[in-house]
């Protein structure tokens, strides 16, 4: 079955209804394993036990960016192909991405206090991540402000495409500017700087967060399709009355 076959709201609903329970189960299992591995991972030789915050902070940062990436692809689907499921996915991903970005900011702040001596500093990485969070709030506000879903989708898609500029800025901010935030340490030329006893639990937690993201995305997209059905039926009901 081609991937585009799922791009029909009714088919997507059937797919989501079947997939969500299985994905939820797998997510729970991977999370349980990941948290277990994170808790038994050794302390960092410099940071001590606070390295355990990394198992939340890094995956949530990745997922915050992945969600905007998904929204960017969906925005192209909205503007180029005018596909209704693209609107649905974009709208569903926004609050999830915002939540992951907020979690990244909060855990980063709680990690920064013992390591840097401050909760917040206006360095390029932290500021660009905060901008991503504000962009999420902007997209959510647009969806809530514009009453007609197709007009809201187009406006949100344009903001999403413009906001996508922030993704490479976040990624390369630690290389382009002198930042208090540490440089790239996981995916870098010459291999990761992190020792495998900490890196493996990090990857397991990243897998768990990714599974959680897709579970939530499918569930939120299902809600959005149902909301649109409700809207259509309420419009039909209103037209019957008048």
């Amino acid at each position, binding site marked *: 079955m081609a991937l585009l076959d799922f791009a029909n709201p009714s088919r997507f609903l059937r797919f989501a209804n079947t997939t969500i329970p299985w994905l939820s189960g797998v997510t729970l299992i991977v999370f349980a394993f990941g948290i277990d591995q994170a808790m038994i991972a050794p302390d960092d030789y410099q940071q*001590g*036990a606070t390295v355990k915050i990394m198992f*939340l902070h890094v995956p949530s940062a990745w997922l915050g960016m992945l969600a905007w990436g998904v929204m960017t692809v969906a925005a192209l689907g909205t503007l180029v192909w005018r596909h209704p499921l693209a609107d649905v996915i974009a709208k569903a991903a926004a609050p999830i991405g915002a*939540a992951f970005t907020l979690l990244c900011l909060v*855990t980063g702040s*709680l*990690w920064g206090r013992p390591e840097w001596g401050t909760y917040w500093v206006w360095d390029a990485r932290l500021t660009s991540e905060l901008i991503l969070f504000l962009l999420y709030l902007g997209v959510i506000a647009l969806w809530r402000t514009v009453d007609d879903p197709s007009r809201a989708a187009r406006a949100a898609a344009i903001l999403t495409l413009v906001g996508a500029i922030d993704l490479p800025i976040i990624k390369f901010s630690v290389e382009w500017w002198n930042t208090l935030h540490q440089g790239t340490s996981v995916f870098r030329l010459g291999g990761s700087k992190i020792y495998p006893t900490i890196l493996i639990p990090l990857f397991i937690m990243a897998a768990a967060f990714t599974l959680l993201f897709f579970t939530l995305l499918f569930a*939120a997209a299902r809600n959005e399709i149902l*909301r649109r059905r409700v809207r259509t039926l309420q419009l039909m*009901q209103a037209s019957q009355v008048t």
Partner: protein
Amino acid sequence: MGATAHLDFIAAAYAAAVIIVGALLIWITLDYRAQLRTLAELDRQGVTRRSGARRAERTIEQAKAAANAQAKEEA
């Protein structure tokens, strides 16, 4: 550096994760139930997508009948 030196920060970070992800889960679950409830309510009132289709079919049939009647009158 002791394992318990910054336990409060670690606990706060994990608590924040539980609160934020938990809130997201609860919101999505409640939203799903609300949509299903509204759909069921509309269904009970007889407002379904099929009823819309039936109304459209009736309108087409009425239009055809009117056109036939007009054609007969003209004949």
